Structures are given as C-alpha cells and as structure tokens.
C-alpha cells in the first residue's frame, strides 16, 4: 500500500460532493468535495505500489481535459489506468448532473 499526494491549479470549481466506485479488486472509489482552498488536492491510498508516475500521468491528462478544482480522496484497489480514468470521468459527470 502507498499513499500519494498531488496538487493542481484548476479553474472549474467543484460545487458539491460526488462519489463513484467501489474498493473492489481492480477498482477504486473516488470522493470529490469542493476545494478547501485555492488548490486542487488529491489524497490517494493505493494498494499497488510503484505507480506514482502513472498516477501523475493519468491526473495530468484528466485535469488537462477537465480542470476541476476540488478536493479528491481516492481509495484504489489496483485499478488499471483505464479504470481510474473511467471513474474520474464518471465523477466529473456526476458533478455536472443537475439532480
């Protein structure tokens, strides 16, 4: 298990809480809150060690397309980059939802 922390400067504020995913084998859950301060922060607990660079790449790419400014908590149980991206974009969709 590894704990990772990332920070970004993003433009689109998160206005409510959103939650996607399950901490199941090959999957992860993402909690998104409105940002605490200026910065977008991500606190990631991952069961797969050695993937910091991959996380960085996934997040860089995600935020380049969807610059959400919020506080993210991630509990990852060995998801592939594809699944991570799926959950991130699902969280993005959930935040857009008017419901």
């Amino acid at each position, binding site marked *: 298990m590894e704990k990772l922390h990332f920070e970004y400067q993003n433009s689109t504020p998160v206005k409510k809480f959103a939650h996607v995913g399950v901490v199941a084998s090959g999957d992860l859950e993402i909690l998104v809150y409105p940002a605490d301060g200026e910065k977008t922060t991500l606190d990631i607990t991952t069961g*797969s060690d*050695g993937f910091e*660079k991959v996380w960085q790449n996934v997040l860089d790419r995600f935020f380049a397309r969807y610059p959400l400014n919020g506080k993210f908590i991630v509990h990852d149980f060995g998801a592939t980059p594809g699944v991570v991206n799926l959950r991130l974009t699902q969280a993005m969709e959930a935040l857009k939802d008017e419901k």
Partner: protein
Amino acid sequence: MRNLWLFPGQGGQNPGMLDQVDPQLKEQVEKWTNVKLLDTAEGYQDSVQIQLSILLLQIDQVDQLKKLGWQPTLVAGHSLGIFAAAYAAGVINKEDIFKLVTLRAKLMQECYPEGYGMGVVVGLSRPEVKKLVAEVHSDTNPVYISNQNSEMQNTISGKLIAIKQVLALAKENGASKAKLLHVPNPSHSPLMQKTADQLNTFIAQLNLHQPSCIYLANYNGHAVRSLKDIKYDLGNNVIYPVLWETMMQVALEYQPDVSSEFSPGTAFTKLLKAKTDQLHMVTLSAMSIDDADYLFNKWEKKE
C-alpha cells in the same frame, strides 16, 4: 492425465519441514553426504543444509507418489529444483543426486565469500530491467539480469554495490518492489562459471539415463527430451537465468491436466494460477501425499 510436477528451489525452507520425511532415507542421505541434517532455524542459515534438506524433502515426496503409481508427464525445477526434477524424470539415481547437490552447495558457498548476491525486481518487465542492468553493469561492477520468475518479476545477480544501484533505479522507474534477496552469491549469472566447470567435471563421470518424461530446462526455457540437454542444464544452470516464465508457458502448451508443486512452499502454484484456470493444482506443502493421491484419483476418474 497429464501431470506437471513443479520443484521449487531455495527460499521456502522452514524448521521442522523434514518431520514427515522417511527417517531411513534421511539417515542414508546423511551417510552419503557426510552432512548431519539439522532441520532447524540455525541449520537453515547454511546453504548446504538448505539445499540438501529441500532436495531430501522433494525426493521423499517423489518416491511416495511414484510408489502410489503416479508419474509425471512434465517436470520443471526452479534452480535447485532441477535436481529433484531430473530424479523424477529417472535421469539420475538417488545417491548421485545427493552427492551432486552437496558438491554444488559447497562450491556455491565457497565461490564468493562476500560482496555478491541477488536482488529481485517486481513490477517491471524483463526488457525494462535489462535496460537498467545495462546502465549499471561494468567489468569492475558486474550485474546481470538473472531469473525470470514471471513476466513482471525478475531477479538480478552480481556485485552487491551494482545490485543496489539497479534496485534504486528500478524503484525510480516504477517497480512495486525492488529488494535484496538473502542469497550470498551471484547465482544464475556468468559469474558462476567456475562452479559450473567443476560441476560439469563431476557430472561427466556419472551414469545417467534417458528421461522418462519431458523436462523443462532452466537455461533456455525449452521442453527437452534428450539426456544431453538435461545434463547440460544440471551442470550449467548456475550460469544462466532460470527462464521460469518461459518454462511455464511451454509447459502449458503441452496442455497438462494437473500441476503438482512439491515442497516447500506454494509460490509457483500462485504464479501458475495467475496464468491459467484450466488445470487442477496440488501443493504438497499444504496437504499430505494421501490427500494428493485422493485428488489425482478423483480427477482421473472425471476425465
């Protein structure tokens, strides 16, 4: 029923593991080798003790299974494991195999008193590790990529300083695990040439037999049927990587019905499980020979 017999090497030894071994055989082995087998934690600080005890454990299990009428279709040993594999394949007799392994263990113990060893990198592919090894390796600071345990788990062997450099690089490059192994010599690398030479001299005077089944060779990962190839593997596997992943890939292409991992440990069954769910698996360290016999009978009936 096609049965793939797997023989692990060093690493899984634990005190008391010889409890169930035929006491007569143990005594006999002690006579042949002039080594008193301690089967204690202190004993297993010594690699002659480790190698002989694991071999004894495996040979005893081979004897018991064969007595019950079971024969392998394919045998695969990992490093030290090839000796019990060769025995199971009917290539070499009991006395010779123990003498051969005693010699091997002693030679290995003597060859590099300090400063050499092995490391393991998990989470990088073999080509990736190879690249890192190439960055570090030099004549004065030798390090080689060695065993290929699975696609993403490879070992390196060489001088400790060089190994540590590779391990650090591996960590930087996203390895999930990169650590030194408790092995006091640079096994499975060209640095073991002298050991291989002496082993080959010894093997040359043994009376060996054609194998009764397919033997998966460490040094090239091929399925071999000729005595010549097996002989080469027995003498030279210390200077080559153990190409376990390839061996297992090849073994699976022979479509076995059952894999049976001999003691100690269950590591190779786990690796195999990650590759396929199409065969039955037995681990002798977790069950008795009678239990294995019961399962083999059950599975054979179902086919």
